[in-house]
């Protein structure tokens, strides 16, 4: 039996520039256990509900994370709207859906770039971020922000997108598809990338289910879980099927994200075609008195925003269960039995978002 060593991974690592730490217990090159350690920058945002009224708190929810900012904001607003019985206008629901899908595209392309950097493909990293820039430009033109959207509020949205601009967005994204095809072909077909990803970090469907995994991590193992099929926002008007792969390895997780970029472009096209004229918000009267668990599909999977109000303008409780937090047990399971050299790639393909986790 080999001697056991503990190799620290993180909280600072060139492949994962976010503060999460793993103590990797190894026997030779094989990992036999992984002990995660989080909370290096825990912000306690959940308790800010004591100091910000439920309308102001939208801005806090928007800032939980950079990559998933809009989804946090939308999930929080949905929860408050459910508690208060607010009927959001249909146009606002479509606009929320379009912005949510733009956020998913830019998050997934960003992931592709970071993954390319981890493989040592500097040019591919640059090309990925160049394409992401096109999406950020659309977000900036329609919301005023590039990362923090600030466009969602309780009762609707703050800004409208006129129909001509929507057509322009669809055209720009359609044109981008050709470049995306070229970019993603490298990820799908390149020999070296396949060598690093195929068969590495295998995770079965049963494990994904029992360990409560969500998002691309679950869908890459054949577990078709996608909260968008619940039909929140305008998803009930759109045709959507969860993107599922069955490989269960790092390569399958990469494929899920690539296919989801194209799916999001198609969803934006559908939404732009079906959006109706009308108001974009309703007046909010009263204060929240009740509770609701809002479920939204972020780029990394199902996020839950729990809101409980007692009739005052300050919420009694706000809780966020982020996808990365629920994926950590799965992460430990995947790391056990893998090789030390594969750890950066495995963790990267699981795409942990520590900013969300340290809410």
């Amino acid at each position: 039996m080999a001697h056991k060593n503990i190799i620290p991974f993180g909280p600072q690592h060139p492949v994962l520039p976010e503060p999460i730490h793993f103590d990797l217990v190894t026997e030779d090159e094989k990992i036999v256990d992984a002990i995660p350690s989080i909370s290096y920058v825990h912000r306690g945002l959940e308790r800010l509900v004591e100091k910000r009224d439920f309308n102001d708190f939208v801005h806090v929810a928007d800032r939980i994370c950079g990559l998933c900012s809009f989804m946090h904001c939308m999930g929080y607003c949905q929860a408050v709207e459910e508690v208060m019985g607010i009927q959001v206008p249909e146009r606002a629901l479509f606009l929320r859906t379009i912005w949510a899908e733009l956020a998913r595209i830019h998050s997934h392309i960003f992931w592709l770039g970071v993954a390319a950097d981890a493989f040592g493909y500097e040019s591919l990293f640059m090309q990925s971020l160049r394409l992401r820039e096109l999406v950020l430009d659309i977000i900036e033109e329609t919301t005023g922000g590039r990362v923090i959207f600030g466009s969602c509020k309780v009762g609707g949205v703050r800004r409208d997108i006129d129909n001509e601009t929507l057509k322009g967005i669809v055209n720009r994204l359609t044109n981008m598809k050709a470049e995306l095809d070229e970019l993603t072909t490298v990820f799908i077909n390149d020999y070296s990338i396949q060598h690093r990803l195929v068969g590495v970090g295998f995770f079965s469907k049963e494990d994904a289910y029992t360990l409560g995994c969500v998002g691309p991590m679950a869908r890459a193992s054949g577990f078709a879980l996608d909260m968008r099929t619940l039909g929140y926002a305008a998803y009930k008007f759109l045709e959507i099927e969860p993107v599922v792969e069955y490989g269960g390895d790092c390569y399958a997780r990469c494929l899920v994200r690539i296919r989801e970029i194209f799916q999001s472009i198609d969803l934006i096209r559908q939404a732009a075609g079906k959006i109706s004229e009308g108001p974009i918000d309703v007046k909010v009267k009263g204060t929240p008195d009740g509770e609701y668990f809002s479920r939204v599909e972020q780029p990394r999977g199902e996020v839950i925003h729990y809101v409980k109000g007692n009739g005052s303008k300050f919420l009694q409780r706000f809780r966020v269960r982020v996808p990365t937090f629920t994926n950590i047990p799965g992460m430990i399971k995947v790391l056990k039995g893998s090789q030390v050299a594969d750890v950066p790639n495995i963790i990267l393909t699981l795409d942990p978002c520590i900013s969300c986790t340290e809410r």
Partner: protein
Amino acid sequence: MSEPQEIIVIEKNNLLGIVSDLFAQGYRLVQIGCTTLQSSYELNYSFDKDYHFKNLRFIVAPEEEIQSISVIYPNAFLYENEIHDLFGLTIKNITIDYHGTLYRTAISTPFSIENCPVPEPPKPKRETPQETAETQNQNPEVDEQPKE
């Protein structure tokens, strides 16, 4: 669209039995959450099967012990450690117990009753006949949104 959500209030002692049943029925554990009340804590165990959301709920006093469900749902250990670290509740037999070191917080148990007093809910106003007349004269569509 409002997603139907089932909230079932249970006895603390029945937790393991009910959770075992849900596991056998194929439910996945979605989350475990805790809410600070005036002098107790409300625990929510959320499950999902085929997008059917079910929530188990019970209330515990600060000194009460809770049995871990991590023997049934292995991923529960993370939520239980979180509740222990943030709320100070004692959860017994967690499969992977961090003993209070999962969260690095400036103060211990920042979400506990001592550190996180729950504000009183607003009392309904008793309106005098004069106030009622004044209210009727006011614009009924008063927006309570703060200035942006």
